[in-house]
C-alpha cells in the first residue's frame, strides 16, 4: 500500500530537500491557488471537507486503512487508539458544524459565496470583504494528528495555499489527509504541500518563511521564539505554546448510580491519544466527601484503565519516556510506604498505565502515556490554589458535574483563566468551533477589508 509521491514528504528518505526546492514548491502552490482555489466558494470547501471526512469514517477507506496499518509503528499510537481518535475527529466534519464555525468567526460575511466579493447582505450597514493568507505555513509538532489536520482544514476554508512542515518522522497522518483531499479533488490537493525535516534547518526554513504570509506553529516556548525570530516582519505569526489540562469531579456525581460512567469518561480522556497533547489531563481533582470517596475513584479508574488496556492498548514509547514513568512510579511507591495519604496503582510488567493518588493538591506534570494523578480537594477553590503555578497555561478543564454546578464552575474557571471547559470524557475532542488557546482559530487567519460607504 504505497502512496503516489504528490508531496515532498512522499519522497524516499534519501531524497534531500534544498532551499530552491522549497521556494519552487511554494511558488507552484501559489499559482495553483490562484487558478484552482480562489475561484471556489466557501460552501464548496465545506462540502469537500465533509465528503473527505465521510470517506475517512468508512472502515474500508483506503487512507484510513493505511493510517491504521502504518500508524502504530510510525506514530506510536496503537491501532485501537488511532481508530477511535480518527472516528471522533472526523465525526465533527458536518455541514452544521462548519456553518457554526463560519458563523462564529466570520459572522454575516460567512454567507458570502465568493470571498472576494462584498457580503451578499447589502442591507448590512458594513458589508465586508475577507480573505485568507496567500501562503499559509504550518509548523506541526509531533505525532498527534488532530492539531495538524485541524490546521489544514482551516486553511482550506480560507482558500489559502498551504505548506505544512512536520517534525522528522511525523508526517504520516497529515500526508494521508492531504492525499485524501487530492483524491477527492486533485486541483485542491495541488494547493497543499506536506514536507518533513528536523526542525532547526535554517536554510530550508528561511526559504519557506520568505514565501510565507501567515504561519501557525505549535511547540515549546523556546521553539516558538526561535521561529518568530526568523520570520520576516510582514508574516503574521500564530504561535500555540505549551498548555496543560486537568479534570475536576464534583461531589454530587460521586454516587454509586453514576460512578461507572464518570470513571469511564475519565479513562476516555487518559486513553485518548495516550494523553499526549495540551488537551489531555495531567491530573483529575476529585471532591472529597462524596458517597464514593476520592481514593475509591482512583482505584476504580485504575481498574478501568487495566480493562481498557486489553481493548485499547497504549502504543510503544521511547525508552526516555518509559524511564520517566518507571522513575515516577518508584518514587510514589516509595512514598506510599511512608504516607497513608499516597497510593499508587500500576500495570504490572509494563508502564502501560499508572494511577497516583495523593493528597498534595499541587498540580504536577505527568510523564503522560496514561500516567494520571488523582488528587482529592475540598472544593473548586482548592483546585485553583493547587494549580496556581500553571495558571494562565491551562487549556482545558474537564468537568464531571450536574448542569447547574457546571455552569457555576465554568464561570469560576473562566475567571481564573482556563480557556476551555468541557464535559469530562471529551477533553481531547474539541468541536470545530473550539477557540484554540482562547483565540479564534479561523478568524485569526483572515484579513478583512472594511468598506465604508455613504449610499
Amino acid at each position: 500500500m504505497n502512496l503516489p509521491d504528490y508531496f515532498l514528504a512522499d519522497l524516499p528518505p534519501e531524497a534531500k530537500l534544498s532551499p530552491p526546492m522549497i521556494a519552487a514548491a511554494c511558488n507552484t502552490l501559489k499559482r495553483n491557488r490562484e487558478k484552482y482555489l480562489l475561484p471556489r466558494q466557501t460552501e464548496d470547501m465545506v462540502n469537500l471537507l465533509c465528503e473527505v471526512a465521510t470517506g475517512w469514517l468508512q472502515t474500508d477507506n483506503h487512507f484510513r486503512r493505511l493510517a491504521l496499518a502504518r500508524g502504530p509503528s510510525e506514530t506510536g499510537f496503537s491501532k485501537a487508539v488511532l481508530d477511535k481518535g480518527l472516528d471522533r475527529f472526523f465525526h465533527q466534519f458536518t455541514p452544521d458544524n462548519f456553518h457554526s464555525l463560519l458563523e462564529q468567526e466570520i459572522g454575516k460575511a460567512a454567507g458570502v459565496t465568493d470571498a472576494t466579493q462584498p457580503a451578499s447582505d447589502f442591507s448590512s450597514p458594513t458589508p465586508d470583504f475577507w480573505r485568507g493568507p496567500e501562503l499559509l505555513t504550518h509548523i506541526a509538532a509531533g505525532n498527534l494528528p488532530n492539531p495538524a489536520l485541524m490546521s489544514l482544514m482551516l486553511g482550506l476554508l480560507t482558500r489559502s495555499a498551504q505548506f505544512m512542515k512536520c517534525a522528522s518522522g511525523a508526517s504520516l497522518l497529515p500526508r494521508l489527509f492531504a492525499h485524501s483531499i487530492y483524491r477527492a479533488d486533485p486541483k485542491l490537493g495541488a494547493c497543499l504541500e506536506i514536507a518533513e525535516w528536523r526542525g532547526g534547518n535554517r536554510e530550508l526554513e528561511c526559504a519557506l518563511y520568505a514565501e510565507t504570509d501567515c504561519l501557525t506553529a505549535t511547540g515549546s516556548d523556546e521553539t516558538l521564539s526561535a521561529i518568530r525570530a526568523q520570520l520576516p516582519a510582514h508574516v503574521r505569526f500564530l504561535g500555540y505554546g505549551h498548555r496543560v489540562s486537568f479534570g475536576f469531579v464534583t461531589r454530587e456525581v460521586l454516587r454509586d448510580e453514576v460512578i461507572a460512567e464518570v470513571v469511564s469518561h475519565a479513562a476516555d480522556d487518559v486513553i485518548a491519544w495516550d494523553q499526549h497533547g495540551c488537551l489531555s489531563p495531567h491530573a483529575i481533582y476529585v471532591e472529597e466527601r462524596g458517597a464514593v470517596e476520592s481514593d475509591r475513584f482512583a482505584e476504580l479508574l485504575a481498574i478501568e484503565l487495566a480493562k481498557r488496556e486489553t481493548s485499547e492498548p497504549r502504543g510503544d514509547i521511547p525508552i526516555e519516556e518509559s524511564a520517566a514513568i518507571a522513575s515516577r512510579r518508584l518514587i510514589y511507591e516509595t512514598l506510599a510506604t511512608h504516607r497513608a495519604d499516597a497510593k499508587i496503582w500500576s500495570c504490572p510488567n509494563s508502564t502501560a498505565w499508572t494511577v497516583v493518588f495523593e493528597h498534595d493538591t499541587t498540580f504536577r506534570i505527568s510523564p503522560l502515556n496514561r500516567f494520571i494523578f488523582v488528587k482529592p480537594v475540598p472544593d473548586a477553590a482548592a483546585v485553583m490554589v493547587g494549580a496556581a503555578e500553571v495558571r494562565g497555561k491551562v487549556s482545558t478543564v474537564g468537568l464531571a458535574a450536574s448542569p447547574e454546578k457546571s455552569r457555576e464552575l465554568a464561570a469560576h474557571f473562566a475567571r481564573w483563566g482556563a480557556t476551555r471547559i468541557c464535559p469530562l470524557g471529551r477533553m481531547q475532542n474539541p468541536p470545530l468551533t473550539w477557540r484554540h488557546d482562547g483565540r479564534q482559530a479561523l478568524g485569526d487567519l483572515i484579513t478583512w477589508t472594511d468598506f465604508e460607504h455613504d449610499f
Partner: protein
Amino acid sequence: MNREIYRFAARLRDLIGNPQSAISNPQFADLALELFALQYGQNPVYRNICAARNLTPPVVGHWTQIPAVPAAAFKELSLTSLAPDESTTIFHSSGTTGQKSSRHFHSAESLALYEASLWSWFEQHLLQASGLKFQVIALTPPPELAPHSSLVHMFETVRQKLGAAKSAFVGKLAVDGSWALDLEATLDALSPAPLRAPRAALLLGTAFTFVHLLDYLVEQDFRLELPAGSCVIETGGYKNRARALPKSELHALITERLGVPGENIICEYGMSELSSQAYDTAKNSPASVHYPRVFHFPPWARVQIISPESGREVAEVETGVIRIFDLANVFSVAAIQTEDLGIRRGDGFELVGRAQLAEPRGCSLMAA
C-alpha cells in the same frame, strides 16, 4: 549507635584502602547481602520500603534482588541509618531553584569512608597513570562556600591529598547563590608563572563551568597552553546553567583553548546520593578518546542496567535505567536507582541520557 554497621564500615574502609585487594564477585555478593541486612535493621525508612515490596533479608537471596530506592527519594525521605545526633554533614544535590534537593546524611565515619572511596579510585585512575605532581585548580567555590556539596568535598579531599594550596578553588557564589567562576582568579591560576618551573595542572570542574570558561576564552580570543601532562576532569550535567555541548565538542574545545589533549580529559559520573564515582578510563591504561566513553565504577560498586518496562536487567546492548549498588553507601542505602539511561559495555557502561519528561509527541509543559 549500632556497632555492627560501624564495624562493617571499618572493614570496608580497609578493603578500599588496599588497592591490591580486589573484590571478587562472590565477595561482593556476600558484602552486599550483609550490608542489606544491616541497613534493613538500622534504616527505618528503608525497612518500610523493603517490607512493602516484601523483599526482606530472609527473602532476598542475591544482591541483585535487593530493593533499590530512587535517587529522587532522597529529596523526600530521610534515608539514613544515622541517628539525628550522629549526623555531622549533609550533602545536598544541586537541584535547580525552587526544587527540593536531596539530603545525604554523613557522620565522621561515613565521611571517612566517602573520602577513602573517592581517593582510592581517583588515585588508581589518575595518578598511577601519569606519575606527575599536579597543581590543582578546582573550578568550583571553596568548601567554606559550598559546605553541602559532595563534589566540592571530593575536590577538597583530592587537594589535601595532593598537598595543593588552598587557593586552588577559583569558583565563587553568584548573587543568587549559584556557582560561578572568578574569571580573573581562573586565568591567573592557569597562566604559567614565569619564575616557576611549570607544573602540570589538574583541572577539576563541572561541564557547565568548563563551558563558561571556554566561552569566555573564545570571546576574549585567548588560547592557553597548559604544561605537558596536564589533566582535566569534568563531571556532571548542565542543569540548564550553560548551553549544553556534546562531550566530544566540549573536549575538542578544551583541547583547542587549554591545550589539554583528549586522552588527558577524563569524565566523572557521580552524584550526592552515592559515595563512589565512575570514570571513563580503564585502570592504568591510557585514556581512550573514543566516543561514547565507557565508565567504570570501583570494585566496591556495581552497575545494573534495568528495563523501565519490566524492571529486570536488560541484555548487554540494550538501553535501560542505571541502577548502582554502592557498598560505600554504608550509612544510607546501597542500592540506588538513577534517572540516567545507560548501556552495558563489557564491565563498564555507556551513559546515553536521562529519563525525560519531555513530550516529543505532544505539546504539554516541560517538566517543572
